[in-house]
C-alpha cells in the first residue's frame, strides 16, 4: 500500500483517511469508515436543504396573510421539507453515519460483513437523492410527505411517481444497511464480546435494523401500488372502483410509524454511550436498557393505526391501538429513568456531548409524554392535524434524533478525524440549539391546542404572537446548526490533535488510534470485561484538550 518503502519512523501512521487520496479511492471505497464520511457529507447537504424549506415555512407563517407565497407553493414547500427531512435525513442519519463508522469498531471487526453492499447502499441513497432533487427542481410534490390517496393517485398533477421512485431507492438503501448491521452484529463480534457485553449503541442499531428490514419493504410495495394506480388506474385504493383509501393509510403507516423508531432508536443508543462516559458509570440496568430497544422495535409495529383515529376505523380497533400505543411508553420510560438513575452518584462532567445528552433527555421526555396524550383517542380527535401534532413529532425528531446525532458527532469527532472540535464554540452552539429549539416548537403546542391547523399558508391574526416567537426561535436554531458546520470544518485543519481516547471512554472504538487504521485494529481485540467498566478506567486528565 501507500507506505511501502517509506521508513516507518518518518511517515505518519497509515490510517483510513490518508490511505489513498484519489477521488476513486473515496467513491469506490468499501471501507465502512469512508462510507460513513460519504454519508456524513450527503446527509448534511440534505439537512440544510430541508432546513432551507423549514425557514421558508417559518417566514411565510410570520404573518397571518399569505404574503411570501400562495397556497400551492406553500403546499410544495412543506412537502419538500417533510420528504427531505424524513427520507433523506432522519432515517439514514444516525445509522448510516455514526452506525456505519462505529458498528465494526465497537465490536472489534475489520469491516461490516458486506462492504460492497454497504457501498451500494450509499449509491442507492445518492441516486434516490438525485432523482428527488430533479423532481424538486422541476416542480416538486404537493401532497405532504404522507402522499395520501386518492389525492396522490387522482387529483394532484405534481411528480408523485418520480418522488416515489426516489423514496423507493432510498428505502432499499436502508434495507441493505439494516441487513448488513444484523449480519455483522451476529457473525463478526470479537472473541469474548458476548451479547450482554455489547455497547448499548450496538443494541440500539440492532433493533433499528430489525425495523428497517421488516418495515421498509412494505412502504416499497405501497409506493409501487400508488405508482401503478396513478399510471394505469388499477383502483386498489380508489373507492369508485371498489378500492379503499384506508388500505393505503394502513400500509403507509405500517412502515411510517415504525420509521419513527428507525430514527429515534439509534439516537437513544448514542445517549446511553454519552451518559455512561460523562457520568463515569456503568449504565444503570444495562439489560433493561438493551432489551427496551428491542421492545420498542417490536411494539412499534403494533401501533400504526393511531395515525388513523379520525380516518374512519372502528372504535374497537381504535381502542386497541390506543392501548398498544401506550405500551410503547413503557420501554421508552425504562430508558429515560435508567439514564437518570445512571447519573445518580455519578462523577458528572459537562462537555458538549453531555450537554446534548441532557437536552435529549428533557426534550424526548416532552415529546414522548405528548405522544401519550395523542395516543388518547379523546385528545387526539381534538388535536388531529393541528400544530400540537407538529410540535410533538418535532420534539421527538429534532429534540430527540438530532440532539442525539449532534451529541454523538461531537463525541466521536476526534475518533473520526483525529482532531478535537473547539469546546467553547461547541458549548455555545449546544446552548443555541436548545434555546432555539424550545422557542420554535413550544409555542406550537399552544397554537395547536387552541386550534391552529397544520399545512395552511395563512391563519387568523390572533395566532400571530406565538407564530412570531416560533419563527424567531427557528432563526436561533438555524445559527445553532450552522455553527457546528463551520467549526467542524475548521477543526479538520486547526483543531487540537486528538489522542486515541480523549474522553477516557470505555468501548473498543477507543482502543485503536484516532483516526483508526483501514482495518480498524492492529490486533483483533479479545474482550474480557463488561460494557462501561468505568470503575476500572483511570480518570487521567479527563478534560479533552481545548483548542481555539
Amino acid at each position, binding site marked *: *500500500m501507500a*507506505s511501502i518503502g517509506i521508513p516507518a519512523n518518518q511517515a505518519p501512521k*497509515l490510517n483510513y483517511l490518508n490511505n489513498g487520496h484519489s477521488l476513486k479511492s473515496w467513491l469506490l471505497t468499501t471501507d465502512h469508515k469512508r462510507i460513513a464520511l460519504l454519508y456524513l457529507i450527503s446527509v448534511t447537504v440534505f439537512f440544510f436543504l430541508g432546513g432551507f424549506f423549514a425557514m421558508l415555512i417559518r417566514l411565510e407563517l410570520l404573518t397571518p396573510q399569505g404574503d411570501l407565497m400562495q397556497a400551492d407553493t406553500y403546499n410544495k414547500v412543506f412537502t419538500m421539507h417533510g420528504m427531505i427531512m424524513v427520507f433523506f435525513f432522519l432515517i439514514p442519519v444516525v445509522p448510516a453515519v455514526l452506525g456505519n463508522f462505529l458498528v*465494526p469498531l465497537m465490536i*472489534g*471487526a*475489520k*469491516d*461490516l*460483513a*458486506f*462492504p460492497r*453492499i454497504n457501498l451500494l447502499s450509499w449509491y442507492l441513497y445518492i441516486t434516490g437523492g438525485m432523482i428527488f432533487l430533479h423532481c424538486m427542481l422541476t416542480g416538486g410534490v404537493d401532497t405532504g410527505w404522507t402522499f395520501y390517496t386518492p389525492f396522490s393517485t387522482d387529483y394532484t398533477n405534481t411528480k408523485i411517481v418520480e418522488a416515489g421512485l426516489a423514496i423507493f431507492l432510498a428505502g432499499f438503501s436502508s*434495507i441493505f444497511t439494516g*441487513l*448488513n448491521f*444484523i*449480519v*455483522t452484529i*451476529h*457473525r*463478526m*463480534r*470479537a*472473541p*469474548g*464480546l*458476548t*451479547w450482554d457485553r455489547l455497547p448499548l449503541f450496538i443494541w440500539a442499531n440492532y433493533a433499528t435494523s430489525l425495523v428497517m*428490514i*421488516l*418495515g*421498509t*419493504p*412494505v412502504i*416499497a*410495495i*405501497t409506493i*409501487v*401500488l400508488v405508482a*401503478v394506480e396513478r399510471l*394505469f*388506474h*388499477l*383502483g*386498489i385504493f380508489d373507492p*369508485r*372502483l*371498489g*378500492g*379503499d383509501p384506508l*388500505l393505503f393509510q394502513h*400500509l403507509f403507516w405500517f412502515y411510517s410509524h415504525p420509521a419513527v423508531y428507525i430514527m429515534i432508536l439509534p439516537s437513544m443508543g448514542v445517549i446511553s454511550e454519552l451518559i455512561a462516559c460523562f457520568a463515569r458509570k456503568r449504565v444503570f440496568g444495562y439489560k433493561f436498557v438493551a432489551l427496551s430497544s428491542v421492545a420498542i422495535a417490536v411494539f412499534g409495529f403494533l401501533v400504526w393505526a393511531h395515525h388513523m383515529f379520525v380516518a374512519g376505523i372502528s372504535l374497537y380497533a381504535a381502542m386497541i391501538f390506543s392501548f398498544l400505543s401506550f405500551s410503547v411508553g413503557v420501554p421508552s420510560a425504562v430508558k429515560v429513568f435508567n439514564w437518570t438513575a445512571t447519573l445518580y452518584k455519578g462523577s458528572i462532567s459537562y462537555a458538549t456531548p453531555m450537554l446534548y445528552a441532557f437536552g435529549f433527555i428533557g426534550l424526548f421526555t416532552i415529546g414522548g409524554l405528548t405522544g401519550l396524550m395523542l395516543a388518547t383517542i379523546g385528545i387526539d380527535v381534538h388535536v388531529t392535524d393541528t400544530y400540537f401534532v407538529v410540535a410533538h413529532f418535532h420534539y421527538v425528531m429534532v429534540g430527540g434524533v438530532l440532539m442525539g446525532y449532534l451529541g454523538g458527532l461531537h463525541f466521536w469527532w476526534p475518533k473520526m478525524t483525529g482532531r478535537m472540535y473547539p469546546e467553547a464554540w461547541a458549548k455555545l452552539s449546544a446552548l443555541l440549539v436548545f434555546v432555539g429549539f424550545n422557542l420554535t416548537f413550544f409555542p406550537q403546542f399552544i397554537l395547536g391546542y387552541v386550534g391552529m391547523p397544520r399545512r395552511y399558508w395563512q391563519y387568523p391574526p390572533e395566532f400571530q404572537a406565538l407564530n412570531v416567537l416560533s419563527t424567531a426561535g427557528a432563526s436561533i436554531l438555524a445559527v445553532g446548526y450552522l455553527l457546528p458546520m463551520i467549526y467542524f470544518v475548521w477543526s479538520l485543519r486547526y483543531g487540537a490533535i486528538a489522542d486515541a481516547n480523549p474522553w477516557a471512554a470505555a468501548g473498543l472504538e477507543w482502543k485503536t488510534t484516532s483516526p483508526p*487504521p*483501514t*482495518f480498524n485494529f*492492529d*490486533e*483483533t481485540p479479545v474482550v474480557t470485561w463488561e460494557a462501561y467498566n468505568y470503575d476500572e478506567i483511570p480518570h487521567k486528565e479527563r478534560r479533552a484538550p481545548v483548542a481555539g
Partner: protein
Amino acid sequence: MQDSQATTSQATVQVTTAEHEAHNPALVHQFADAEQQKNAASLGMWLFLVTEIMFFGGMFCAYLIYRLKYFNAFAAGSQSLAIKWGAINTAVLIVSSVTVVLAIYAIRFGRKKLTVAFLVVTVLLGFVFLGIKSIEYTDKFREHHVPGANFHFTENFDDNGKQIPVNPNEVQLFFSLYFAMTGMHALHMIIGISLMSTLAVLTWRGHYSAEYYTPLENAGLYWHLVDIIWIYLFPLLYLISRHT
C-alpha cells in the same frame, strides 16, 4: 455464541489482499476464516428473503381484504383464469426448484459440468414459466380483462351456466391485484433467470468448487423463495374461489 469466537489471529497491521489471495481466493478481508464468511453470507441471504416476504406481504394483505369484501366478484374473476396453464406453471416451477437443488448437490462433489447443466435446465424452465405466463396475459388482453378503459367482464357464470351477479368494478379490482401480484412475481423470475445464467457462466469458468459454492447456495435460496411465492399465488388466485 460459537460464531463470535471464530475471529482469530490476523495480528499483522495491514493485511494486504494479496496475502489473502495466497491461501484462499474467495476469502475477503473482513472475515477471519471461510466458515465465518459462509455463515455471514447465508444469514444475509435469509434476511433478504424476509424483506421479500414483507414486500409481497403488502399485496397479499390487500388481496385477502378485498377477497373477503367482494367475494362473488373475486370468485367470478378467479373462474375466468386458465387453471390448466396455472397448474402447468406450478409443475414447471417445482421441477425447476428440484434442478436447482441438483445443481448445488452436483457442485458439492465438484461435478462442474453437471452443475452447469442443471443450472441451464433451471433457466430454461424459468423461460417456460414466463412463456406460459405471457400466453395467459395475452388471453386476458384479448378478453378485455386488463384493468383500464377497455375493461369488460361478462364471464360471470358458474359451472352450471347460472349467472352470478357481480359488480364489474369489483372484478376489475381482482384483475388489478392479479396483474400486480403475478407481474411482481414475474419480475422476480426475470431477476432469478439472470442470476442463474450468470452463475452458470461463472461455474463454467471455474469460480466455484466443492470447497466454495456459497453464491450458488444463496441464489438457490432466492429461487426457492420465488417458487414458494408462486405456490401461494396459484391457490389464492386460481383455486380457492372457484366454487362459490
